[in-house]
């Protein structure tokens, strides 16, 4: 029953038509653009690369969670508030209550994942759109964070986490750096610049690869494998694509959705823990608007807002575009407010292109 009216499509064209196509093209475009306008600004020197890759990694960690959840057919608008909440919980437990930092981190993860599960259960039980349910948790969590912070410390910024984390075994998993020996060695060989004077004289300008980047890579690769290569990944697509049809063939749709809410909360906690360990402090207003930034990355990456379609690799490329644009405008000395103009433009272009690509793949009309 091959339809003779269908035009033969070349192998090359077929290989090109993928959900990530829009994001890949965007990535190339953004890199070419900044090589041209900011090529000499140090943006592509080791320090510059470290700068935008850390920022991109921050977006990527959140985008993986938001991406899988969106493919499963749901949103989590409380992602940003969860970041502030998680960080504040770590700081209060570790600094105010004097808990060991590892216990504070684990507790914060546990509490946030439980809140994620509650978001999921509410959505499943009430049948309300996750947009509304998590909008409520966005306000509830942000309010709770500020209240808890002021109640325990009378301020909204809690410092002293770095000192508390000295010698802790779990803290370096979020705040540490790896490959430091390798970078020192590269510095000694003159392959990367070293500090000429001051306290750090002789040390390379980049001490190592921060754990945030490692987390981003692990989550992106892991998320991609789970989504495309496992039974559970097929269930994620099915749950978002058509929950009724999926249930009918025995896919545990509710379990999949709740687990994805929990995973998104986990990603928010990874982000928050890395940030708290890096800054040595937690602030109640951290993570503001991150939920939308994560959704933007995911949508640039080719996911469908209504679920059932998307790509973790695409979302990671979306995060890369986001990070490079944000830091690139800074390097090129452009007015920082232009960042949002640029971002909005990229968003709308990416969505138009992605819609076109998706229609070609899925035959949607």
């Amino acid at each position: 029953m091959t339809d003779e009216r269908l035009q033969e499509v070349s192998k090359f064209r077929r290989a090109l038509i993928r959900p990530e196509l829009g994001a890949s093209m965007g990535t190339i475009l953004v890199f070419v653009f900044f090589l041209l306008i900011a090529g000499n600004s140090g943006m592509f020197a080791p320090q510059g690369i470290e700068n935008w890759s850390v920022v991109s990694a921050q977006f990527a960690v959140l985008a993986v969670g938001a991406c899988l959840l969106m493919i499963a057919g749901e949103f989590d608008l409380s992602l940003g508030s969860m970041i502030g909440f998680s960080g504040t919980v770590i700081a209060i437990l570790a600094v105010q209550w004097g808990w060991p930092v590892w216990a504070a981190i684990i507790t914060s993860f546990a509490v946030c994942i439980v809140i994620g599960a509650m978001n999921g259960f509410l959505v499943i039980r009430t049948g309300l759109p996750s947009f509304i349910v998590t909008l409520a948790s966005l306000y509830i969590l942000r309010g709770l964070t500020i209240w808890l912070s002021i109640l325990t410390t009378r301020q909204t910024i809690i410092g002293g986490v770095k000192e508390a984390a000295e010698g802790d075994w779990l803290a370096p998993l979020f705040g540490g750096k790896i490959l430091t020996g390798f970078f020192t060695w590269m510095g000694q060989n003159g392959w990367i610049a070293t500090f000429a004077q001051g306290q750090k004289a002789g040390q390379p300008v980049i001490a190592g690869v921060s754990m945030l980047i490692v987390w981003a890579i692990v989550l992106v690769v892991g998320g991609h494998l789970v989504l495309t290569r496992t039974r559970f990944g097929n269930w994620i697509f099915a749950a978002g694509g058509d929950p009724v049809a999926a249930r009918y063939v025995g896919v545990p749709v509710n379990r999949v959705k709740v687990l994805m809410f929990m995973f998104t909360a986990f990603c928010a906690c990874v982000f928050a823990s890395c940030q708290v360990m890096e800054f040595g402090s937690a602030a109640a207003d951290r993570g503001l608007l991150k939920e939308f930034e994560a959704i933007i990355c995911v949508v640039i990456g080719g996911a469908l807002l209504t679920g059932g379609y998307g790509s973790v690799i695409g979302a990671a490329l979306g995060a890369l575009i986001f990070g490079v644009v944000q830091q690139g405008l800074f390097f090129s000395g452009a007015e920082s407010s232009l960042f949002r103009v640029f971002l909005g433009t990229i968003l709308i272009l990416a969505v138009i292109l992605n819609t076109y690509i998706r229609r070609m793949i899925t035959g949607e009309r």
Partner: protein
Amino acid sequence: MSSYDQNPIIEMVDIRKQFGPVIALNKVSFDVRPGECHCLLGDNGAGKSTFIKTMAGVHKPTTGEIRFQGAPMSFGSPRDAMEAGIATVYQDLAMIPLMSVARNFWMGREPQRRIGPLRFMDMKHANDVTMEEMRRMGINLREPGQAVGTLSGGERQTVAIARAVYFGAKVLILDEPTSALGVRQTANVLATIDKVRKKGIGVVFITHNVRHALAVGDRFTVLNRGKTLGTAVRGQITPEELQDLMAGGQELAALEGSLGGTV
């Protein structure tokens, strides 16, 4: 057909189903034998959906007995019925258009392969089997990764039927598979029903199109306002008579003779 000598796979005896004060089904009896296509006809609201949902384990009958391969059976859920070998292909819920044919085919029963402690979906096996099963049904896929949305309505029904057959259905319930299709696609689906029947699977074909029913049916049961108006064997009933039965049995009295005591 030799199927009349065989025992029914599933027997529904005097099924009555009440939703509150509404009697949806009133003492309906129905059976399916291996290798036959039993058409269930009826106008909208006749109780066809309620009846097949009872057979598929979605509803429990208020009274009456379901016998599966001779033994009384009570399905707690659609999953139970599926596991026993009763597969239902619903008209619109069959497939997820955004997902590939292979992913749809295996949805809920994905084949797995171990790599160390991890279990991955065996995509190669899934793709190969899907391509092969589709080819058998007469659909040449470009590739197993092709999205279901690119298939026509008839092809989607065929994928769903192929899936049910591959996973060992003994009874296949098709809910209005042809009602939204064009002429050529309808012919393809009817041809698929014929192939499935020849494998020894009992097919329950729900339709309100008499011509589609007569094209493949071995027996015909008409439902009207929750009651059966009788079961006729192929060759004993004309299209006009079937049509009249569906329309409400105004001429039932005149037809009783022609139904040959099968009422």
